[in-house]
């Protein structure tokens, strides 16, 4: 029995349909991210769950209860907003205690819970501070404490990190995940940042143009993208062009090398050009005892990024692939123009597309 059930949700604003036939089931205690470019409908789905928007059609069940007709204030769902949205007229304690106060809790009860929550987010001693006296990261932690103080059934996070500095973003997302695990609260996290989604989620729902492209765990989403959109949107891809040799046996040819690829598009005929897509980290510099396919080329550009050296390697025929290698104090990065050989395994090919196709079609 799933905890959150969205069934056949549609949402239109006037003539624009922003969410199309959205179905999702989540188990209790999961941390799931809605990931997609802006305008893909992820925030709208979140607001429909929260009760701020009514779906044009479809139903929402939480813990077996149909909440479709309930107002936001009846749903018992905690929400954290992108712009913090702390009440400016209340100090941190007032903000965190607000949910309990409107529910009619006693003063002692509120005080104890506020202390507990502020301790949880690491802001004990900040009770008397007003929002304008707190940094962005502190405000967002107060907002998190405020959202979970009334013991909601679910927690919704609407791009809570995107207004913050890079360093705080990384530490706060880890803290959010830790608190979520500790409380075991079912959480939906909306973000457009794939690294954020990959690093904290149990599950990721990749959305595009109001539709779910793929729903799976981060490992599957990255390594087994279900659609070209997902493959392209998540991480980076190198393209190798090849010529189809024998469609029936999935054989293709790159220069003199013949490869047996995992799959070919059904319409591919012998002699067609296809594009093989690989993650940069699937390619390695040859070191003399490698398995798999070897291709030679020369360094087109090299950038030293500290822990990694990023090379652009021209393999001829217009293919320039990216390749990352770890920094090594003993070895200088190769110079532009230097000849190199790279190797990869055919099993690491993420997808194979017709060459003249649009990349994200």
């Amino acid at each position: 029995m799933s905890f959150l059930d969205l069934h056949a949700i549609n949402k239109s604003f006037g003539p624009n349909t922003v969410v199309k036939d959205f179905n999702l089931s989540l188990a209790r205690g999961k941390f799931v991210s809605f990931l997609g470019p802006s305008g893909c409908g992820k925030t709208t789905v979140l607001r429909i769950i929260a009760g701020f928007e009514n779906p044009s059609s479809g139903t929402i069940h939480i813990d077996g209860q149909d909440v479709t007709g309930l107002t936001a204030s009846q749903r018992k769902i905690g929400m954290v907003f992108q712009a913090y949205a702390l009440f400016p007229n209340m100090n941190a304690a007032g903000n965190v205690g607000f949910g309990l106060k409107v529910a009619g809790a006693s003063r002692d009860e509120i005080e104890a819970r506020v202390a507990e929550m502020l301790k949880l987010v690491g802001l004990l001693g900040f009770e008397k501070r007003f929002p304008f006296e707190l940094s962005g990261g502190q405000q967002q932690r107060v907002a998190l404490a405020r959202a979970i103080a009334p013991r909601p059934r679910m927690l919704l996070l609407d791009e809570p990190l995107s207004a913050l500095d890079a360093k705080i973003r990384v530490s706060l997302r880890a803290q959010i995940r830790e608190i979520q695990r500790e409380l075991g609260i079912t959480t939906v996290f909306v973000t457009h940042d794939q690294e954020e989604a990959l690093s904290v989620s149990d599950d990721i729902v990749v959305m595009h143009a109001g539709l779910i492209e793929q729903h799976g765990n981060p490992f599957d989403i990255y390594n087994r993208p279900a659609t070209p959109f997902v493959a392209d949107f998540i991480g980076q891809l190198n393209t190798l062009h090849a010529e189809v040799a024998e469609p029936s046996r999935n054989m293709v040819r790159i220069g003199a090398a013949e490869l047996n690829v995992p799959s070919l598009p059904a319409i591919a005929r012998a002699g067609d050009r296809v594009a093989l897509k690989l993650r940069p980290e699937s390619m390695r510099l040859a070191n003399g005892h490698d398995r798999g396919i070897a291709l030679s080329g020369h360094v087109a550009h090299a950038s030293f990024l500290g822990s990694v050296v990023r090379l652009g390697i021209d393999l001829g025929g217009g293919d320039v692939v990216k390749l990352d290698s770890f920094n090594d104090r003993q070895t200088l990065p190769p110079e532009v123009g230097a000849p190199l050989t790279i190797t990869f395994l055919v099993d690491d090919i993420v997808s194979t597309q017709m060459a003249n196709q649009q990349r994200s079609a």
Partner: protein
Amino acid sequence: MTAMIESVANDVRVGQPIPTRNIAARVSWSWLGAIPYFAFTTLFMLIPVAYLFIGAFQNQQGEFTFANLIDLTSPNIAASYWLSIRLSFASAAIGTIAGLLLAYAVIMGGLPSWLRHAFTTFSGVASNFAGVPLAFAFIATLGRLGLVTIILKQVFGIDLYASGFTLYSFWGLALTYLYFQLPLMLLVITPAVEGLKPEWREAAQSLGANRAQYWLEVGLPVLTPSVLGCFLLLFANAFGTLATVIALTGSNFSVVPIVLFQQIRGNVLYNPNLGYAIAFGMVVIMVLSNTLYLVLRARAERWQK
């Protein structure tokens, strides 16, 4: 774009140093540029007001005294201050509450947006429609022979003037002032009402608050400094009003500006220095309400970020 122009400007200047003679010329010009303004404001604003203030602390022989300020508490003058303060307070309070309600209705009341535009434009005009013509309009409306007075009497059988109302009274003036106070309130409170973030309401909702709880705990407290500030602005606005009163009541309704007006006309107090003290008192009240207004506005802006 701006940054680009700036960097272009700097680059050129670095490569092409300005001759020293030119710099010297500019320094002297800078000071000359400010002289007319400071001279004008000093001569026609600071010195005349200072003249009155000094006179407020002198007797007719030019000796220092507090007698004039003490005389402000004499029954006649104290009564006119008290009348002015009550009238300004009443018209500002009604204007504040009515303007706040109107701002709420047109900004977040779920009405079509052309209504808001219409009220804002009208308010820009009406807040400047004061003085003598405003008095005429209200005489034509609610005077003894005013159209509304007649219609109420003939159609509804309500005789306003028989029931004790008259336009030339405290409440008649307050109702007339409202015609510029209400639009002014709408204009000055609009930014604050717009500054109520929708997320605050949504956050309150998701924490279980109903509409009334949101307004009592968040919406109104956030608006309070702005509302009080605007009240003080309206208070000062009413306190200085003179032309409307004269056109409505002649010189019979002795609010402070009228008393001072009479004094200037004919020295009715038989003591010019008492006139200075009255002027001093008026400015003190204006300074107090405007200072408090600025303090409250700064507080509101801190919250609004």
